[in-house]
């Protein structure tokens, strides 16, 4: 069965590319464009990986991350944080709040696909 990835990102053109790439790599892709919906979808579905943008409307990425980690069922969900800021504090905040990986925009396609594959495998193992 295909592994399931939720892409929580509010830039439609970036969502379109990431979805295409992950589908080509054999993933099932769900998309949410704001933090609150992303949180609900993550709670309702059995996800293998979450790609989480930092700057999201409604709830920002850090808050989503915090709430997920507080949830017993979701505290181990592999999460890749995305940000366009790329400052060191961002990376530290993300990793301290419990993200597994952190990636700054602009990223290379191969890079993000490899990161998601790595996270999905860690889940399986």
């Amino acid at each position, binding site marked *: 069965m295909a592994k399931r990835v939720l892409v929580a990102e509010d*830039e439609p*053109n*970036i969502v*379109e*590319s*990431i979805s*295409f*790439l992950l589908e*080509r790599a054999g993933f099932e892709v769900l998309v949410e464009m704001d933090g609150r919906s992303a949180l609900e979808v993550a709670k309702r579905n059995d996800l293998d990986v979450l790609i989480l943008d930092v*700057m999201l409307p409604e709830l920002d990425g850090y808050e989503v991350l915090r709430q997920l980690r507080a949830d017993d069922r979701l505290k181990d969900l592999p999460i890749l944080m995305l940000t*366009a*800021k*790329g400052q060191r504090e961002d990376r530290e905040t993300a990793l301290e709040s419990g993200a597994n990986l952190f990636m*700054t*925009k*602009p*990223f*290379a*396609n191969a890079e993000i696909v490899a990161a998601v594959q790595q996270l999905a495998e860690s889940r399986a193992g």
Partner: protein
Amino acid sequence: MCGWIIRSICQMNNNNLTNHNFFVKKLSDPLQFLSKTIQMTHARSSAKSPPDRHASILGTRVRQRRREIGLGQAELAKRVGISPSYLNLIEWNKRRIAGRLLGKIAEALDLSVDELQGVGERRLLEALDEIAGLGAYAHLGIEGERSAELIGRFPGWARAIATVARAEREATARASALSDRLSNDPFLGEAIHRMLTRISAVRSASEIVSDYHDIEPERRDRFLEIVRDESRALSGAGEALAAYLDKAEDADRILTPTDEVETFFETNDNNFSAIEVAAEALARELTDPRPISRRKKAQGLVETRLGSVIDQIVQSSVDLATEPARLRASRALMDYAVGAVLMPLSQFSRGAAELGYDIEALAEMFSVEIEVVCHRLTALPGETGSPTFAYFRSNAAGTIIEMLGLPGLALPRYASACPLWALFRAQQSPEAVIRQRALFPSGKRFVFVVRARHTGPTGFGKPRHYLTDMIAMTEEDAGLTVYAPDSAVAVEEVGPSCRLCPRHACIHRVEDPLAG
């Protein structure tokens, strides 16, 4: 080389974006070079450490000057009436000289005592001592105890070191102020974030088009469309950023939030039509004629109904680049809007013209306080044929706490105003309306109308605190108002502020703390 250093410093001053560490590195190389030169100087010098460092300049200078004018030691000694061996001790800083002997030596060397004592050198010595003590240069091994000798032998180099060090200190302070501003500038942060997001979309979509050859034609076209749209948006964002940085470079000084808000009002000619339109409608809801309840009602209406209009004006203004400025502008626009609801523009401009812009009569007509009328007058659009008004509010300490300017009226931005403005006289007769016919050094004539009022709670035996409100207009514009001065009204010479004022003979002039 000094030219190079100075040029670097100038470049640095002109370049707001350059990294501050880079400056420091650029400067520390020449400083190291200078310091090595000084070390070599020491190695060649045979003078022993003198007991008194200031005296050491004096002895060295006597020797130097004597050689300069081609005078032998014996000859000079003879002219001032001392033995050559004693002069030798003086020249090698082993004996101090003062009083009559100092005068005689100076005269023989054709110098004034001040020149010989080196008053300028003493300052230089203090500057070098300071440099030698700086932690940042501790690793350079500066021979601090020998700076006097350096000044005596190589005064040009000594001055260069002091100049460079001072320039470095100023440039560093400026660079950190700028870097502080850049890292806290919400516009830049937002702009860079947007650009990175666009670049990300372009990069991803273009990689897909080039890497996936089996992609369906419609999908491929869709990704090409993304590349095109996002690139367009990206170049727009780039242009906006460049324009913003250009503007930032033009501004020689760093703007404060107050400056930003003043510029914002100035660009809008103190008039905001979106608020005016909305206020005309809201004004009909003011049914209670009592002044206090009218004001309260107007404030309530503005808070509940005009918040989004005000937000939109503030958010879309390019003049308001920082959050504190936007907050202040929002508050100022709230006050503006309250005035607009209490005195809708259509009624106000008609009433004002009929009453000759009489602030007391207008306050009566609209049941508002006089200061609200003063403020409101600045919103009258000049093209309707009404006078253009400036508005100032000052506290008892003479600080201008609010100002809506007027072109040509020179305003003190960072100093107190000219003490001769009626603005500061009005507190002698509170509640009375005072007129002043003011002549500026530029030859421009303005009419000031001023009134002081007490503010805050007071009572018998308690202090009263006064604020002064002032409207200003050109004398020509004043002709349209009840404040038009006839020739019997004396013209008073005033200025902008003492620092900018050319009236040097003015007895009320305050000395400049810097220029003396």
